């Protein structure tokens, strides 16, 4: 990873610190101010004045905003205004103007912190990448990628609130001081489910300081563990994996999946070996909704949520594990399916893993544990860890204590939003109101914030010192990249420390008058290591060998659970699903996540009840079953594009009712409703249904009017799913914005799939491999040959660069279709969000379009309504023979010598001809000034110059300074992150100088070879590749041939060009997906054939 320069420039020997940004090191406040100065002089000048601090901070931000925003709009003024260069007065170490600095940090969250590398420009974090040195390296998911936007979020909480009114931090100080005095105070501390050693240490001290203090842990969708034992799959050792409704590749965090995905590649990680089916793992999935994991599964069984336990029990029964006395399954097909599954499991013995969804009932978890024990895979396929995450009260306990006033003061630090998302039957809000003092620390002014007596704006994890444990327990550092943008922001540790400090003195950000920041001291104390160790800790971002101790899970004995009857259309099952965009609702104000389409339903900006087509028909929601593939590509009954409107239904369950729009979704269990949680937190007057404004203040512009709230339907007992639901049409229609309206491939072999099993007429695995390039039309269409010799005036080849020829390959076998790459691209390339209306029209700007296709086997008699799901990320293919180029009248898009399809924004006049002529439709046009005019205000874009601007808002500070911010009227598209390529190539140019120095000769006497100038193999990564949690994307230099991963991938038989028939010779190619079915399974002969039978 030479892209990541860890410590540059070289550390002077006497150097005592690595992270100059840490306030602790910047002892001299003045220095720090001057550093601020150089970035944005005028604003900082005001900040000298302490009184106006608060106001000046805002202007300061405006200035930051404008100066970055200006960077984009590529207009040349003929008369140049006088501009100033403002250097540091005292140069801070480590800052080289215009050069990115990289820091190791990590994002704390339940299920394990995400190890990160943060890119900063002059101290301004702009991009998050995966830390590949970290033992729990797991790439990044969409949430991690998008979390940087929260730092600059316009709706971020900036001020202290007292009973919902603006207050001063000083006033809050008095509260703390008062609390501190009373050591018998009945304080309850509520934390998130993430783990932090320092926090744990402080909790210990707090217990001493406050005798009657209580400690709770709450996250809406994460259950508290009693014994703190954590079961994680070890995919490296798991040949057979069974997922009992466990979406471990998606929203159900189970640690790193790198090993899993690499075992989806027949050639293994890095494509080093020869394709070998035996090396692949096999995934069985039993689930209700269609999840990404289900999409990856080799065998997928769709059953109602209430039926999962029965299936688990049946498996247990087959394997002789305790079956909880649940009645056997009756359905013959399912029985056979489970029987064969069990046989396969038994055969693999310890090299198996059976995973139960973390939100599943205790019964299912116990059954799964039982099965694992029966298979004896604990310690091999499944590993048990002893975490320190135990002994916390849960939300129920908290409610009880509040009601019984065992707790009078609550300090609410959980990232969740209990007033909004606690189980309805707890009536938490009422209990919460009983607290004498409630202190809420959060970066959002959400429902809980306004329900509390005190709301304290939380510092972002990129602004605060802390530490966290990654999925397998490795202690990882959380270090600040920048001082809190807003003076009132307080980090969790700082607040806890205040309770321990004398007089409860709350110290935020830097230490007082030059003293080291308390938070930093606290973290240091936890580690208590010497300077060099500490330095390495900061440098690598983690402490070596600090994983959890292994444990022996208890339980798995005979559990008792009763099988509930299968759902009918009178009594439906409802799943309260974790949402891929807003998780439990905490991300509702994140524009990137909101606009990223749901990986399965492709819905943006909203949630909707997902329902299987047949069920929908039976319930009379649609007169006709929505076909997956209609003969004439007709428009669905809901309409298409901006005209698309879904019918509203009222869902009644647990005695409560709520309205939702409904979407048909293929392949999910019949008679089951899937309702994603976390939406409908706030409404204003502009909402599409004309509802009255409600809780307007709880979200910002991004989160307002987004979807509908399902939490009121949810009780403690039915935390994951409920039964006995009824629905009825309200007669209303609700506009929904989908990025993909047609879900089938319509006979076109686009996302290709083969099977390790022999397929009729297609031969065995090897035969199918050989035939990948001949699927679909390519089986009979002749190859295109150009009449032209591709050379210039002097007979030189057009793509003449002897050093680099960039290319990419995307492995559909490990790509699951999450949005990590899409969001990573958005943050790397300054891609604006465009809002719901624009997305509905079809104007989303994502450079990567995550296509997702369903494919049914025509004579599937096992379960005809359970299609395969194949994702296909489509960006610019960088065609060698690019149709877009030839049609541009002004030469705004031409090819570079190193094989990129370049796009010169400042030359583009916006004829949009190129986009028409792009077969992959990979080009995006700035129909409006999305970067300047706020697309989230209703009808704002159409008001043009009169429209409200948002280019001076802080969120523009996230922009990557090396990428032009596009103005309206220009075309844009994927560039293979050309700015990163440039950076790598230019850095390599210094190689010459080094050689000269080494040789001791004069430079003219040292000939420079191509090898000197060619960047090291696989040393540059595109943003999507860097983010990918599945290592599905490999990018590199064709000149490295088989030395580079991409080079090896291109040589595989699985490698094919999308739409090869046109002869565009794309540089991005795909590796066909390989399914590894169990030949004995009843559905085996329908697996892996999404495209194989097309011609």
């Amino acid at each position, binding site marked *: 990873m030479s892209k990541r320069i860890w410590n540059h420039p070289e550390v002077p020997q006497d150097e005592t610190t690595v992270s100059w940004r840490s306030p602790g090191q910047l002892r001299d406040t003045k220095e720090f101010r001057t550093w601020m100065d150089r970035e944005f002089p005028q604003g900082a000048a005001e900040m000298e004045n302490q009184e106006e601090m608060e106001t000046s901070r805002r202007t300061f931000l405006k200035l930051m905003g404008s100066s970055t925003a200006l960077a984009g709009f590529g207009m040349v003024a003929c008369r140049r205004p006088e501009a100033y260069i403002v250097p540091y007065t005292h140069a801070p170490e480590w800052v080289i103007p215009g050069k990115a600095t990289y820091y190791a940090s990590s994002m704390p969250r339940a299920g394990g912190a995400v190890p990160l590398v943060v890119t900063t420009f002059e101290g301004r974090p702009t991009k998050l990448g995966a830390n590949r040195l970290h033992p729990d390296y797991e790439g990044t998911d969409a949430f991690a990628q998008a979390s940087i936007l929260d730092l600059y979020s316009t709706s971020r909480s900036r001020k202290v609130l007292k009973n919902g009114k603006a207050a001063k931090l000083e006033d809050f100080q008095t509260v703390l001081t008062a609390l501190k005095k009373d050591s018998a105070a009945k304080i309850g501390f509520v934390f998130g489910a993430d783990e932090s050693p320092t926090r744990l240490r402080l909790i210990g001290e707090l217990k001493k300081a406050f005798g009657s203090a209580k400690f709770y842990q709450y996250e809406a969708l994460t259950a508290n563990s009693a014994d703190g034992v954590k079961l994680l799959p070890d995919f490296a050792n798991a040949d057979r994996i069974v997922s009992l409704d466990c979406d471990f590749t998606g929203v159900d965090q189970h640690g790193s999946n790198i090993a899993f995905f690499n075992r989806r590649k027949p050639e293994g990680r890095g494509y080093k070996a020869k394709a070998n089916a035996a090396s692949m793992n096999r995934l069985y999935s039993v689930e209700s909704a269609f999840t990404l994991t289900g999409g990856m599964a080799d065998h997928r069984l769709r059953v109602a949520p209430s039926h999962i336990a029965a299936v688990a029990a049946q498996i247990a029964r087959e394997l002789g594990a305790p079956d909880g006395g649940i009645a056997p399954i009756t359905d013959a097909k399912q029985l056979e399916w489970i029987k064969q599954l069990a046989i396969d499991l038994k055969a693999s013995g310890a090299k198996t893993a059976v995973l139960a969804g973390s939100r599943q009932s205790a019964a299912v978890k116990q059954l799964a544990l039982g099965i694992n024990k029966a298979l004896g895979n604990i310690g091999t396929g499944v590993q048990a860890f002893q975490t320190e995450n135990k002994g916390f009260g849960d939300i129920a306990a908290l409610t009880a204590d509040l009601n019984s006033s065992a707790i009078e003061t609550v300090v609410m630090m959980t990232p969740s939003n209990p007033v909004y998302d606690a189980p309805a039957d707890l009536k938490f809000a009422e209990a919460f109101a009983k607290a004498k003092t409630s202190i809420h620390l959060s970066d959002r002014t959400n429902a809980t914030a306004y329900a509390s007596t005190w709301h304290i704006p939380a510092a972002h994890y990129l602004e605060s010192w802390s530490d966290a444990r990654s999925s397998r327990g490795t202690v990882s550092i959380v270090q600040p990249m920048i001082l809190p943008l807003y003076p009132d922001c307080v980090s969790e540790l700082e607040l806890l420390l205040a309770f321990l400090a004398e007089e409860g003195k709350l110290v935020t950000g830097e230490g007082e008058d030059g003293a080291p920041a308390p938070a930093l001291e606290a973290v240091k104390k936890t580690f208590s290591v010497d300077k060099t160790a500490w330095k390495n800790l900061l440098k690598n971002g983690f402490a070596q060998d600090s994983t959890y101790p292994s444990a022996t899970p208890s339980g798995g004995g005979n559990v008792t659970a009763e099988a509930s009857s299968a759902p009918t259309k009178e009594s439906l099952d409802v799943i309260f699903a974790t949402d891929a965009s807003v998780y439990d609702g905490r991300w509702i104000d994140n524009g990137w996540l909101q606009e990223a389409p749901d990986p399965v339903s492709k819905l943006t900006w909203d949630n909707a009840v997902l329902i299987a087509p047949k069920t929908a028909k039976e319930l009379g929601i649609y007169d006709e079953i929505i076909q997956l593939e209609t003969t004439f590509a007709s428009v669905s009954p809901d309409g298409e594009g901006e005209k698309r409107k879904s019918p509203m239904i009222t869902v009644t369950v647990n005695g409560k009712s709520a309205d939702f729009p409904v979407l048909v979704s293929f392949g999910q269990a019949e008679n089951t409703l899937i309702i994603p949680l976390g939406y409908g937190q706030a409404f204003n007057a502009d909402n599409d249904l004309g509802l009255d404004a409600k809780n307007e203040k709880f979200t910002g512009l991004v989160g307002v009017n987004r979807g509908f709230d399902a939490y009121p339907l949810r009780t403690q007992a039915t935390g994951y799913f409920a039964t006995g639901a009824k629905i009825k049409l309200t007669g209303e229609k609700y506009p929904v914005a989908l990025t993909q309206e047609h879900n089938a491939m319509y006979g076109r072999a686009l996302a290709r799939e083969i099977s390790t099993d022999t397929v009729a007429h297609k031969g065995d695995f090897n035969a199918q491999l050989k035939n990948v390039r001949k699927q679909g039309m390519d089986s009979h269409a002749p190859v295109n040959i*150009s009449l*032209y*010799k*591709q*050379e*210039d*005036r002097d*007979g030189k080849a*057009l*793509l003449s660069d002897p050093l680099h020829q960039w290319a990419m390959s995307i492995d559909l076998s490990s790509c699951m279709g999450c949005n990590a790459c899409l969001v990573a691209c958005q943050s790397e390339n300054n891609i604006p969000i465009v809002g719901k209306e624009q997305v509905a029209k079809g104007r989303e700007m994502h450079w990567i379009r995550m296509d997702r296709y369903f494919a049914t086997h025509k004579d599937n008699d096992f379960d005809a309504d359970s299609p395969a799901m194949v994702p296909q990320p489509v960006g610019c293919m960088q065609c*060698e*023979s*690019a*149709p877009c*180029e*030839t049609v*541009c009248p002004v*030469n705004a898009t*031409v*090819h*570079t*010598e190193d094989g990129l399809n370049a796009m010169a924004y400042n030359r583009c006049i916006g004829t949009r001809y190129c986009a028409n002529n792009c077969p992959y439709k990979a080009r995006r046009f700035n129909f409006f000034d999305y970067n300047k005019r706020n697309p989230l205000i209703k009808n704002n874009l159409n008001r043009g110059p009169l429209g409200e601007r948002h280019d001076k808002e802080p969120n523009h500070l996230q922009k990557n300074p090396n990428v032009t911010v596009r103005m309206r009227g220009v075309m844009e598209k994927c560039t293979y992150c050309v700015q990163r390529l440039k950076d790598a190539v230019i850095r390599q140019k210094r190689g010459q100088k080094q050689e000269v120095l080494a040789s001791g000769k004069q430079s003219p006497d040292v000939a420079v070879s191509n090898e000197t100038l060619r960047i090291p193999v696989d040393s540059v990564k595109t943003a999507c590749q860097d983010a990918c949690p599945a290592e599905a994307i490999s990018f590199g230099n064709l000149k490295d041939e088989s030395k580079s991963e991409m080079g090896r991938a291109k040589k595989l038989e699985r490698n094919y060009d999308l739409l090869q028939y046109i002869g565009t*010779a794309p540089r991005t190619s795909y590796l066909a997906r390989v399914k590894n079915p169990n030949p004995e399974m009843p559905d085996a002969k329908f697996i892996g054939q999404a495209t194989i039978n097309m011609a």
Partner: protein
Amino acid sequence: MSTTRKRVYGYLAEFKSASALYKAAEKVRDAGFRKWDCYTPYPVHGLDAAMGLKRSILPWFVFFGGMTGTATAFALAYTTQVVIYPTIVQAKPTNIFTIPAFFPVMFELTILFSGFTVLFGLLALMQLPRLNHPLFASKQFHRATDDGFFIAIEARDAKFSPDGTRDLLSEIGGENIELVEEEEK
């Protein structure tokens, strides 16, 4: 104001029809006049022959004009696309073989230049615009653009004689013969 001197332009005679004009024209031609013209509301066919006019040389102008257009277009395209700044588009060669792509523009410019040559060539040959002309001073001449057929013989012609010419005109069937004069400035 004092009487201004007048300069004689020539005789203007009207004829009753195209046929009459035609015959008269032949006579005038045969009488060997040079500086004279027939004025008609529409182009009368064959009158050129009757007047002994040569075929217009405009086509030659236009031919060269058009060629200039072709050359210009080719030069423009070839120098910019191949010589000065060749760009790689859709893997198409940036050498002599890219020329077919220039044909449309070459064609259009040929037409454009020809068109302009026609316009300006014609104006030059007709010596227009000329807004002032002695004939406009004539009382009847305005009918030349309506339904009048006229012959005007200029005084500048060597064969012109105040009486002889008038007689000639009347004898070849000219009516309302008028001596057209213009004021000497």
